[in-house]
Structures are given as structure tokens and as C-alpha cells.
């Protein structure tokens, strides 16, 4: 069975400082992992995905995530936050043959000027 835990429901950073959004997963197989972003009143947009290739994955808008099997983690980072990064972020795990993806509960990122 697959599951995902986003360790922080809210993260607040100042503009220009680093962003860290934490995600731990559980999977019986080699999963695919995704991060999605949802801006207010919008649908979800793919930030990046891990599908068993390089463990450091680069995404859009300067975000990246590192797959750490030993820690069952897939944390999302960005070196310098921008005001436009304020949004809801979802970590997602998907096992081959599962038929569906499992979403974390989301992390709300606030960026202060």
C-alpha cells in the first residue's frame, strides 16, 4: 500500500530565503513521486516528478527535489523564494499497478515581503 505524509501544513518564509517543504512516503514497490502546486482558484500544476532515474530532480520555477530511498523522503526545495511561489503544494506517490495516485494533505507556503 502507498501513503504520503507532508510534515508541515504551513510554511512561512521571507522573500529571497530558501524554501523547504517536507514529504515522506511509504510504498511496497519502487514508486513514482510528484510535486504539484496549486495557486488560488486554480487547478494543480506539475512541478516535478521522480520516476527512478536521477535522484535529484529539477522542476519548473527553480524548484528541485531529492529522492532519498533510505529516508523514504522526497523533500521540495528552492534556493530563493519569490512572492509568486505563495501557493498550496502537494506531494504525491504512485505505485505501478496501483491505478491511482495518493495525495498528501498539502502544505501552504506563505512568502513574506
Amino acid at each position: 500500500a502507498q501513503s504520503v505524509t507532508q510534515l508541515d501544513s504551513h510554511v512561512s518564509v521571507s522573500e529571497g530565503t530558501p524554501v523547504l517543504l517536507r514529504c515522506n512516503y511509504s510504498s511496497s514497490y519502487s514508486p513514482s513521486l510528484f510535486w504539484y502546486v496549486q495557486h488560488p482558484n486554480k487547478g494543480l500544476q506539475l512541478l516535478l516528478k521522480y520516476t527512478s532515474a536521477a535522484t535529484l530532480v529539477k522542476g519548473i520555477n527553480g524548484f528541485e527535489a531529492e529522492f532519498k530511498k533510505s529516508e523514504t523522503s522526497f523533500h521540495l526545495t528552492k534556493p530563493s523564494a519569490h512572492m509568486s511561489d505563495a501557493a498550496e503544494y502537494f506531494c504525491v506517490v504512485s505505485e505501478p499497478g496501483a491505478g491511482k495516485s495518493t495525495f498528501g494533505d498539502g502544505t501552504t507556503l506563505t512568502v513574506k515581503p
Partner: protein
Amino acid sequence: DTAVSQTPKYLVTQMGNDKSIKCEQNLGHDTMYWYKQDSKKFLKIMFSYNNKELIINETVPNRFSPKSPDKAHLNLHINSLELGDSAVYFCASTGRVGDSPLHFGNGTRLTVT
């Protein structure tokens, strides 16, 4: 060109009414989904269709009935609307379940009064 489009964007209706939400994708994907996002931003899968066939039904009340006339369309009909049905409903599609990302529509905000 919008990849996954839903209509309407907003839907306000009274308890007991019946309403439908439509979804279309032009990505050539075989699999489509309905997700429900509650007021706390939690996302829950409701249904999944693969090439017009229902493959996932996540203990959703019988008042909700999805219909897929072809693999590019997945509609959601809701009978006898209740206050608790108020939420944002997202349609999504994917090319290959598991390691391909989900493509989301912009959502339909349903308010039941």
C-alpha cells in the same frame, strides 16, 4: 489550447437539486479522474475511468454518477444535492497510470445552499 477543461467554473444551487459538471481533455489520454477538494484543501479521488470503463469508485454516495461517453470526456452528475457536497471538483487525466503525471482542469466550485 486548454488540455483539460471543465464546465462550469462555478455552480451555486439549492439542496435537493440535480446538477452536472462536464470535463473534456484533448491530450489523447486513456484515463480520466474526478477528485473532490474540501475546504481544508484535502484532495480525494472519487472515480477513475480508463477508456470509458469505470475502474475506481472510492465509496462515493450513489447520488454521484460519472459518465464517460468517450475516452476524451468524463462527466459527473449529482442527484439530490446536499450541503456537504459543497467543494471544488477537479477533473484530471493521465497517459499512463503510475509514472505519468496528472493533468488537471481548473476546477468547478460547487456551492449548495
